Structure formats: C-alpha cells, structure tokens
C-alpha cells in the first residue's frame, strides 16, 4: 500500500476538529498541542528515516546497532526519571541482554520466519519489546529504589538477623515486580473488550488474517512481559555493586 500526498493531506485534515475545539475553548492547550505535534512530527521523521535505512541495508549489525541506540536512549530516560546515575550502565546491559534474548527466542523458536534476522522481522520485534521494557521498567526500578531509600530499616533488620543479601532485598524486589505486573495485568484484562490495541490494529492493517493477528499479538504481549521481567531483575542484579558498598550498606548518594 502506498500513501499519496493527497491521502496524507486528507489525514492531516482531521486535525481541524481538535484544532478548532481547542482554539474555541482552550487556546493555552492549543499552543502546547501544536508544539507536541511538531515535536512528534520531527521525531517520527527521524524514526522513519532510520527505519528506511535499516530496511534498505538489511544488515544484522545495523539492526544490533539500532537496538543499542534504543537501549542507550531508554537507559538515559530511566536514569533521568529515577535520578540515580549509577544505574545507567547496569540498565543498558540489562535491557540489551533481555530484549536480545527474548527477541532471539521469539524469532528463532516461536515465530520462525524465513529470515529471522532480517530488518523486516528483527526491527519490529525488538521495537515492541523495547517499548514495553522501557515503560514498565522505569516505574518498577523507581519503586525499588524509592522503597530502599525510604524504608531501608527492613533491609538492615533482615540482614542483621542472618538473612542473605538476596533474602534481605526480597521485600523490595517483590514491590518492584508487583509494580511492574499489576498495571500490566490490569490493562491486559480490559484489552480487546474496550479497546483495540494499536499493535493489533497494525497487524491487521499489515494484512494478517484476524486469527493470525490476534495470535501474534498475544505472543508479543507474552514476550514483552517476559522481557520486562528479565530486564528488571537483571537491572537490579547488575546495579547491586553500584548501589551497595562491600559492607552491604546503601551508598550515601543513592
């Protein structure tokens, strides 16, 4: 399917509805909306150009480089949200490892297309997983460190009574995992009933039969959940030495 300029213009014409209503009732938001739209347009243009290059060259190394760029950007965003710089490298390593591992499993074991490493398959699969990992892990990692900072007494009490480091951190890990799964489960339970997920719509527009599209969508959701959990656990594991000193104490700048 190709999109002509006329089609594009017709699509953009839909902006008249929100544009007019914002102009009439909330001009302050209109300005913000215009800025957000321009920003989104620029980002999408850059993304489109990157994807065009990835599809044109269709190289495994280029796909890996693309994933690395996504990971670094995601880790940067995560660190800025949780305000702990020490987590940057562990988060990069964890997200890269988990997304790569789950993507490889999905491509080589579950989906098994003719050319699993081609840009056509590798880029969307890693992209979907990466997006889910980022959105869920920011919240979960922040929950973990917030709990540790605000309520480290439980950790020291457990440790002081003979618990191992992992046992003493178990309540905090539980909190982090809960904060990742509970919202995901809540959105999954209403999915399909009240809203048609964007990814499913994309699969249908891409030409898949409804049954195949729904199956693929469910597999993607399962893969995304697995990658998110793996990434969270690896981030916490890899960041352990950055966050605690050799005596098991939280470092003062955490």
């Amino acid at each position, binding site marked *: 399917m190709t999109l002509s300029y006329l089609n594009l213009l017709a699509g953009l014409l839909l902006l008249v509805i929100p544009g007019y209503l914002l102009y009439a009732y909330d001009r302050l938001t209109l300005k913000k909306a215009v800025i957000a739209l321009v920003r989104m347009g620029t980002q999408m243009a850059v993304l489109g150009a990157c994807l065009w290059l990835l599809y044109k060259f269709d190289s495994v190394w280029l796909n890996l480089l693309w994933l690395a760029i996504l990971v670094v950007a995601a880790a940067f965003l995560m660190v800025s949200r949780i305000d702990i710089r020490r987590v940057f490298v562990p988060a990069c390593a964890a997200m890269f490892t988990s997304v790569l591992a789950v993507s490889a499993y999905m491509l080589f074991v579950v989906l098994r297309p003719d050319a699993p490493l081609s840009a056509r398959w590798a880029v969307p699969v890693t992209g979907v997983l990466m997006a889910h990992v980022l959105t869920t892990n920011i919240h979960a990692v922040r929950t973990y460190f917030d709990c540790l900072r605000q309520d480290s007494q439980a950790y020291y009490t457990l440790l002081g009574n003979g*618990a191992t480091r992992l046992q003493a951190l178990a309540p905090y890990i539980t909190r982090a995992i809960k904060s990742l799964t509970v919202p995901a489960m809540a959105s999954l339970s209403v999915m399909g009933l009240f809203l048609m997920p964007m990814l499913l719509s994309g699969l249908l527009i891409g030409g898949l039969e409804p049954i195949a599209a729904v199956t693929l969508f469910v597999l993607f959701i399962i893969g995304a959940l697995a990658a998110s959990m793996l990434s969270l656990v690896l981030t916490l594991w890899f960041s352990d030495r950055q966050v605690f000193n050799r005596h098991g104490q939280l470092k003062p700048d955490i």
Partner: protein
Amino acid sequence: MMLELKDASLTIEGRELFKKLSFMALDGQLTCITGPAGSGKTAMVQVMLGFLPLDDGLVSIDGELLTPRSAPVFRRLMAYIPQHRDIVLEPAADNTSGLETVWAPYATKHYHPTPIDSSLNTAPMSTKSIIIADDPEPSIINPLRSMANNGHTVIVTTQCEEIINLSDKIITLGNHDTVIS
C-alpha cells in the same frame, strides 16, 4: 560467644565518635552501651553487625575477625532488634509493631529467624548466640536479662537507667572519653 572490639576508632562526618576503644562482650553477660543522643550508640551497633567499617582497630567474634566476607556468616549467629521498629514496607494488618509483617511473608519461604515479636516472645532468639538490641523498650529488658543469664551474649544500647542498672558491663560513649565500668 565473645564479641571483642580492640583499639576501635570511628569518625563519621568529621565527628569522632570513639577512639582506641577496647572492650569484650562476654557470653552470660548483659553489656550496655550508653551515652547521650548522637554519641555513636547506633553506629557501634552497625560496626558490630559488620555494616560499618572502623577507621582503625578491629572487631572479632570468638577470636575470628569480622570482615565484609565473614560478617554474613557471623550475622547468622546474631539476633538484631533495630532501634526503629516501625517498619512500613508492608502495612501492618493489625496493631502489631510492623516488624513481623515484614517477616511473615518471607519467614517460611526464605528463612526463619524472627528476633522478637510484639508479644515479647524471645523463643525465636534462643538459637542465636549474640543478641544485639539497639535502644530497646524497657519492657523487653527482663527477657533479655534472662537470655544473658542463660549464656547468651546480650548487647544493648540505651539511655534508660532501668536497663543500665540491670547490666553487667557499661560502656559510656560521648564527651570524647569512653568509660568502661
């Protein structure tokens, strides 16, 4: 078991808490560490638990050095009652102290030791050789005294006269001089 500090010095944020301090907490004794607020009582507990390194000197248990590597092993022999028992990680379902609400989900799954519960049941501590209580409520001093009488090494930090009077050994921190009596 004997817990010993030898020539121990500690300075935190430029403030000298103690210098060249040596004492032994023996089994069968209740050792009391006292001093005004901010004199380093809780820091001393952290040192004995292996959470805080000394600037100088050493901590040993039955002659074995307490190091970052050996501390987890020694902590299995210890029961620690923290100063602040209002742990809020998991909200308490009833009016308990909160400590056991943290323990409850993990006690059976991961490990067992519970230092003390709100009903002052010291039975879970009986398997531990060294009991360290950081500023405990006066109401639990009698069970702790009994544990010392039964051969445990009991160390408490406190400012409470009632607890100090029941102690076998008193270490007074603060005012740059450490008094051992």
